[in-house]
């Protein structure tokens, strides 16, 4: 066949006995709803294989009947042959349908379960793991299972059974001749072992080659604008040629592996046939065997070598599927760090946010916040200012409970955030992040991210509320305009407006704006801010802004520096204090009125 199924598994990923048992057990548990159909389908497959082996034997019987001139037996054999053929058609059909149904249902459930667990996992997990790796769990790992479901399993079961059944039948027909035919087994065994190892290594190399080629292709296409801007197309083409050529070499290596193995299996097959003819023929002449038995032997031998060759490839495939399952189960067992408490309290209304004695470190353990005490009254507007890396965004993320503080606690209306139900928390405390990611879809779809059941009217109203409706209605397709990959169809400011509209459509108790207007021109910004004024009225709001005019209009200002809240008070108070804020402000004012 042209394309053989390549598969393989890394030495690190190969399952040891315990892991394999764990995988099998978990799979059996997850398969429970479909157990009936699955067992039934495999049973059908077994009957089918058994009958498949009977056919050459029947042919041999027919030859014997012919040899002995018995028309009666010949006719009866033919009828049985026809019957088995018909039965086998239906058996196989039913087996394929049964296996696919259960397999695909299992995969669908697995996809849903894994993704929903992924959505439950918390930010520390996403900080720790590379995005590419997370995505590959849901794509390449599940795909390698899909291959097994779609044909690997059928072929593995069928080939293994076929191999066993053929061996048994041969031994029963004539054990002497069978033993003679076994001479090529050691050769095949050694060759298959080596092949499996080489094919595995070659497969891994091809897989890596494909990976590098695709990521270079991807980077070249995603970065094409920068590449052209720097007139680097020739160099990039050269670099791509290199990985592409490496991939070609790996493909060729993998082809070479098959190129020596397949002939060996082929030759062993024909060689064994020749042997069967020589020895079997001699025995037949001697009267020890019927000529039909020799014929059945020759026909069955054709069935013996194909399964051997396919099994050694399938074995790699099953192994890699096992490794994928293992990784998926590991993901499912990944603990949810920011977890919901067992008796969650539903948050409601507007609220007081109290931060007491909070300290925090990201995964790397470096302290980012320490001893932060802060009480934000209901309806208050608080600005957080301070230099880059001070910890402003971090504090905001803690208040939205994207992370849990390592020390101290944060409460909403007196309820510790750890005790709150996550769903109500996400409704009550909404954070508009610094980088507002746009998803593929229209402007409208993107605003709807904040509120899944928002009607079109609500979306229009939200845009109107922040004073930018005309701007979007002016686009050729209005709010139905496709924003394209990461919003590239829109200007930088327009992207940020979409992200702000998300905040305007929800009705949270606490709204956190983390530099949500940094790409807007000051004019638009002040329109938006003015419009949001109404939105923020008697709603607790935390604004992180580099533009100190924005900050100065807030009720209170907190200055964060080096992970500590160093100053807190109204603009006037802090100016009178003549400390960090006052000096920040005067530098800034100086920059506003350059001479």
């Amino acid at each position, binding site marked *: 066949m042209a394309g053989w199924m390549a598969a393989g598994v890394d030495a690190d990923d190969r399952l040891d006995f315990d892991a394999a048992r764990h995988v099998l057990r978990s799979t059996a548990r997850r398969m429970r709803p479909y157990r009936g159909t699955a067992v039934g389908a495999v049973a059908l497959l077994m009957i089918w294989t058994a009958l498949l082996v009977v056919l050459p034997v029947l042919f041999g019987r027919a030859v014997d009947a012919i040899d002995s001139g018995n028309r009666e037996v010949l006719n009866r054999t033919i009828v049985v*042959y026809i019957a088995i053929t018909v039965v086998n058609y239906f058996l196989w059909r039913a087996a394929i349908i049964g296996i696919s149904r259960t397999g695909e249902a299992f995969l669908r459930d697995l996809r849903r379960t894994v993704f*929903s667990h992924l959505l439950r996992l918390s930010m520390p997990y996403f900080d720790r793991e590379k995005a590419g790796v997370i995505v590959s769990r849901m794509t390449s790992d599940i795909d390698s299972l899909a291959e097994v479901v779609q044909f690997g399993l059928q072929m593995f079961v069928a080939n293994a059974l076929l191999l066993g059944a053929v061996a048994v039948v041969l031994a029963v027909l004539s054990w002497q001749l069978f033993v003679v035919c076994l001479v090529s087994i050691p050769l095949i065994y050694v060759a298959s072992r080596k092949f499996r190892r080489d094919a595995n290594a070659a497969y891994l190399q091809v897989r890596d080659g494909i990976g590098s080629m695709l990521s270079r292709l991807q980077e070249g296409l995603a970065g094409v*604008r920068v590449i*052209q801007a720097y007139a680097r197309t020739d160099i990039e083409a050269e670099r791509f040629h290199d990985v592409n050529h490496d991939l070609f070499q790996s493909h060729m290596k993998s082809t070479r592996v098959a190129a020596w193995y397949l*002939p060996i299996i082929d030759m062993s097959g024909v060689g064994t046939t020749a042997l069967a003819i020589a020895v079997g023929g001699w025995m037949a002449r001697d009267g020890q065997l019927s000529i039909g038995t020799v014929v059945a032997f020759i026909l069955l031998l054709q069935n013996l070598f194909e399964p051997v060759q396919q099994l050694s490839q399938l074995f790699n495939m099953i192994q890699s599927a096992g490794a994928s399952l293992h990784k998926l189960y590991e993901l499912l067992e990944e603990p949810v760090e920011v977890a919901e408490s067992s008796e969650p309290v539903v948050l409601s209304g507007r609220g007081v946010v109290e931060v007491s004695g909070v300290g925090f470190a990201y995964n790397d353990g470096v302290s980012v916040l320490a001893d932060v005490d802060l009480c934000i009254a209901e309806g208050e507007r608080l600005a957080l200012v301070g230099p880059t890396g001070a910890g402003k965004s971090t504090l905001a993320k803690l208040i939205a409970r994207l992370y849990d503080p390592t020390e101290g606690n944060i409460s909403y209306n007196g309820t510790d955030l750890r005790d709150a139900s996550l769903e109500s928390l996400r409704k009550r405390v909404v954070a508009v992040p610094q980088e507002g990611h746009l998803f593929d879809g229209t402007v409208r779809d993107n605003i709807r991210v904040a509120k899944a059941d928002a009607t079109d009217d609500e979306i229009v109203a939200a845009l109107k509320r922040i004073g930018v409706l005309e701007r979007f209605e002016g686009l050729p397709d209005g709010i139905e305009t496709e924003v394209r990959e990461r919003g590239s169809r829109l200007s930088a400011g327009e992207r940020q407006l979409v992200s702000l509209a998300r905040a305007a459509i929800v009705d949270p108790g606490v709204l956190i704006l983390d530099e949500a207007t940094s790409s807007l021109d000051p004019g638009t910004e002040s329109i938006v801010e003015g419009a949001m004024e109404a939105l923020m009225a008697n709603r607790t709001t935390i604004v992180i802004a580099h533009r100190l005019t924005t900050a100065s209009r807030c009720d209170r200002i907190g200055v964060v520096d080096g992970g500590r809240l160093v100053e807190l008070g109204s603009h006037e108070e802090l100016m009178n204090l003549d400390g960090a804020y006052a000096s920040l*402000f005067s530098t800034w004012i100086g920059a506003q009125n350059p001479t």
Partner: protein
Amino acid sequence: MRRHRRGIAAGMFIGLVWTIAKVVVPILIQRSIDDGIRGDDSLLGWAFAIAAVGVVSGIATGARRYVAFQNARAVEADFRDQVFTHAQRLHFGFHDRHQTGQLMSRGNTDLQQFQNFITMLPITFANLLTVVLASIVLFARDWQLALAALAGLPLANYFGRKFSQNLHPALTAIQEESAQLASVVEETVAGVRVVKGFGAEQLRFDALAVEADDVRDASLRAARARANFIPALEVVPNIGLIAVLAFGGHKVLDGDLEVGELVLFNIYVVLLIQPLRMLGMIVANFQRATAAGARIAALLDTPIEITSPSSPTPLPQGGDDDSRSIGRIRFKDVDFAYDPTNPVLDGFDLAIEAGESVAIVGATGSGKSTVARLLPRFYDVDAGSILVDGVDVAEADLEELRRAIGLVFEETFLFAASIRDNISFGVPGADLATVERAARLAGAAEFIEQLADGYDTVIGERGFSLSGGQRQRLAIARAIATDPRVLVLDDATSAVDPTKEHEIRDALQEVMHRRTTIVIAHRPATIALADRVVLVDGGRVAAQGTHDELLASSELYREVLAHDDTELPSEDGAP
């Protein structure tokens, strides 16, 4: 394609040897049964003959496969190089309209289909030959039995073709649905902060659930095609075998046929089934490869709209570095629209002197970034013209033009490579001193030196491990390193905080010294870097002058900068 022809011819020759060996083996088996076992020929001789042919056929199997794959992979690699190179040269307008994912599949799945087809060419030839030779042998033996045995076989061909035709759309659907599923996952992971911030988990889950159902449905469609045709294909040879037994068996009993010949017919029927099935599939495969090939060809034939003219006008060179007089820019009544219904620039007219620095100011969506994209000729203007040092950008050599203009995009894109490689992107092989100098001028040296690996730090996927401000500074350093005659900064310091910004500003003053610079900015402090401010509105220059002049004279300018003295809480003693 042409240079791969020889390989294909070699593949066909090996296929010929392989076919003959395959066809000869059953004849030898028949002879050994009839003349060896039932007659009194030397059994050993026949057995040796079979083994010998087996060796030839085995070697031919390996060689045929090897040659077939070598050719197909070489063609694939060749085309992939072409796809990449061409896509790299295509204009921005093309890339605006085509998703990265679409282009990826040209260089990936489409090429695979093409490669599959080419791999199958030699074996198709061998298959055809097998069918012809085996039929000849069978008809020569006993035309009636041959007819009976082979009558059902065309069904294999028919089913094979039908199978492929049914399976393929389902496979394509699986591929498409899987890609959609992958993009839901990718986007969710990339935008996880937004998802968590708004509690949009359910929404994303629903999106995934739809895709998971679609993948399952498409997979079940493929499974149905398999269930319908694979067992049917298996029945076909059995029809032939039953005919051989029923018709041939009685013939032997009547003494018209030898037992060995019966076995021969049997083996041939089994032998023919695979080639016939594959011949059916190759028809469908051919249709598919043609479709994939057409898509690839469409990409490769897409004209590159923006190319260097055949005899480009060189940009004039300046004197020695101290007396730069190059970098003069002129936008002459430029009209431009991304799509014709929506004009962005409309009579945009602007002249910038060599060495001058100009700030472009305007509301969101007014077309500032567009102006920046037109200068290096990422798009062609619809009307009017753009001159750099008196040379129309359309007349200049594209590479020279783009080297002359250093543009820092508002969206920072860094490559997964070391910081050093990122900074020296436009000057491959630049020495460390150049890189360090560029980093210093962009205000990036300080944080880079604090990293454990310094300039050798590899920045990850989309450079995510750096803060927004840090990434912007690398992008500025990358532009400075090329020492362009015109530097364009498109809102390149928006993520840098104001306390750091003045450091960058001081550094930039050195870069901007005697270098034409265009800054697009919203912050007065950045605008103040420029000698002159240009206000864009309605696709044209609405006003220009110094910052103070515009503040005094232009209502619109005050509006865009939200300049309102009364709103600034006054500092003690300050105005």
